[in-house]
């Protein structure tokens, strides 16, 4: 088992390296010229050339890649071109904000999704199940900003009980910080809830239709014990898998939600700098997002490996 887990983690690291190449290549080798892009169409060839020199763009691509990767590994992403600020410092503060927001959303969404999934299974094909699936279908069709602005419209304008802009700052008391992120966290929860619930429902249904559940029922176990002793141990791995995959999905949803609520996190930082075409920042933030995403996927796979009795108790 240890070998399998190790292999999966190694694979994840290899994937992350490949992704770093891809991100680097995506910003360096594509037809757009970075220096040109920064300076705009009106720039003279001389200024473009001098900026290329200044950015070290004249070195061969692989040299620049390793220079960049070496920096990234030691926590040095360089400085932002537009503001001259140190990128790593910026990311540190913002990553914490983003993870806090995502964690709050996850704390609300995960239990809610699992409970709703269980209810849907319990009343399968009944009206509760149909209602839940219907809402799930609808909410996967909603763009994030529709949910976000609808929340703002109702809770900040119609019944002004919450702030429409989530300002947070260093040293802010925890309670105030929580209040500031109620709306963005709710929006994020709604964004992932439906999907997570549908997948939980499918995972539990899959287990409940196994022959060993019938065996347990035919032993005279009560419905509760069938689920607790026989369904749950087998459903836990697929559910964790569902949760992890959706947390990864949440990482993407966070980009839009942060923009809506002007929340100082990674997502907003990325979007701002894409508009400014500040390539070093985009590369760094892209890499961090990819790292978080890939890590969550590794966690999902590793739990699946650990939870599999065939792997835990080999022949």
């Amino acid at each position, binding site marked *: 088992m240890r070998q399998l887990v190790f292999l999966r983690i190694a694979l994840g690291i290899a994937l992350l390296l*490949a992704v770093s190449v891809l991100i680097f290549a995506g910003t360096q080798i594509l037809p*757009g010229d970075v220096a040109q892009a920064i300076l705009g169409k009106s720039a003279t060839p001389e200024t473009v050339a001098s900026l290329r020199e200044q950015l070290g763009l004249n070195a061969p691509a692989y040299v620049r890649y390793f220079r960049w990767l070496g920096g990234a590994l030691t926590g040095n992403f360089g400085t932002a071109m537009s503001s001259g600020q140190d990128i790593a410092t910026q990311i540190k503060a913002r990553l914490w904000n983003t993870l806090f927001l995502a964690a709050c959303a996850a704390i609300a969404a995960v239990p809610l999704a699992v409970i709703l999934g269980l209810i849907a299974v319990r009343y399968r094909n009944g009206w509760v199940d149909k209602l839940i699936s219907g809402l799930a*279908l609808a909410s996967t069709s909603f763009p994030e*900003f529709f949910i976000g602005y609808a929340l703002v419209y109702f809770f900040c304008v119609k019944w002004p009980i919450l702030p429409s802009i989530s300002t947070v700052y260093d040293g802010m008391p925890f309670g105030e910080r929580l209040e500031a992120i109620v709306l963005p966290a709710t929006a994020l929860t709604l964004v992932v809830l439906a999907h997570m619930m549908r997948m939980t429902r499918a995972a539990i249904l899959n287990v409940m239709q196994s022959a060993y559940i019938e065996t347990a029922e035919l032993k005279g176990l009560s419905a509760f014990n069938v689920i607790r002793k026989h369904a749950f141990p087998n459903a836990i791995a697929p559910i964790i898998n569902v949760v992890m995959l959706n947390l990864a999905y949440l990482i993407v949803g966070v980009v839009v939600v942060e*923009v809506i609520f002007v929340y100082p996190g990674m997502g907003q930082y990325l979007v701002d700098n894409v508009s400014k075409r500040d390539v070093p920042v985009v590369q760094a933030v892209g890499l961090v997002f*990819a790292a978080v995403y890939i890590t969550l996927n590794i966690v999902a796979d590793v739990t699946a490996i650990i939870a599999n009795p065939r792997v835990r108790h080999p022949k």
Partner: protein
Amino acid sequence: MTGLKRIPISALIGLVLSALFVLAAIFAPWISPHDNAEIVGDVWEPMSAAHWLGTDNLGRDLLSRMIYGARITLFIAVLATALSFSLGAILGFSAAVFGGWFDTLLSRLVDLLMSIPTLIMALVVLSVLPTNLVTLILVMGVLDSTRVYRLSRAVAVDINVMDYVEAAKLRGEGSGWIIFREILPNALSPLVSELGLRFIYAVLFLSTLSFLGLGVQPPDADWGGMVKENKDGIVFGIGAALIPAAAIAMLAISVNLVADWVLNRTTSLKGGRG
């Protein structure tokens, strides 16, 4: 063949709404009361008989903007879906049928592309590419084709190992017959349903990009861009931004309903008579 009366009510609603959106997009210049960029009144006028949906942040007629917005939204989404679908399906089928290094290479590349969230990858790429419609369609289409590739490869691999395909191979049939007569007819229903889902995804993705200011550029606007234009009104209690957002949701739901129905209808295997 299936008569109209056999269509469930939900799918019928989906079909009618989707058709309305498409008609609005096609006949935009004839049915919209005002021009796309024409300033007809005050900023953020409420809904009235003159302006059914009110006016936007610059005093343009919101209904007219919505109708033209449908045009841009659908146009880009359709092209991006067409690109992602043809690219993904052709490569996916070929990978399944030919196998070998071709399959391995493509599959690993797709794994790699899919290991980064699509939005993040799109943002990274858009930070260096010129912002225009062609770039937008290419980026959306290529990134999304990875999902179509995975699905069509999986479906084709499943079918490719069926005994009836083996029987055709034993008979000596060529790849053409095997792909088009044995595999394709059986892969059609999941693929058609996926087409709907990919289109929804393209609409949502385009809207998100435009909302972030990285999609369709002013003065043109798709629905996502219109949300961005009007979002500042929300805090003043002006719901103009919610209208295009709701339109996106409505379009997505309608197509979803249709795709759902197509999938359910065609999975009962009695040829076309089910």
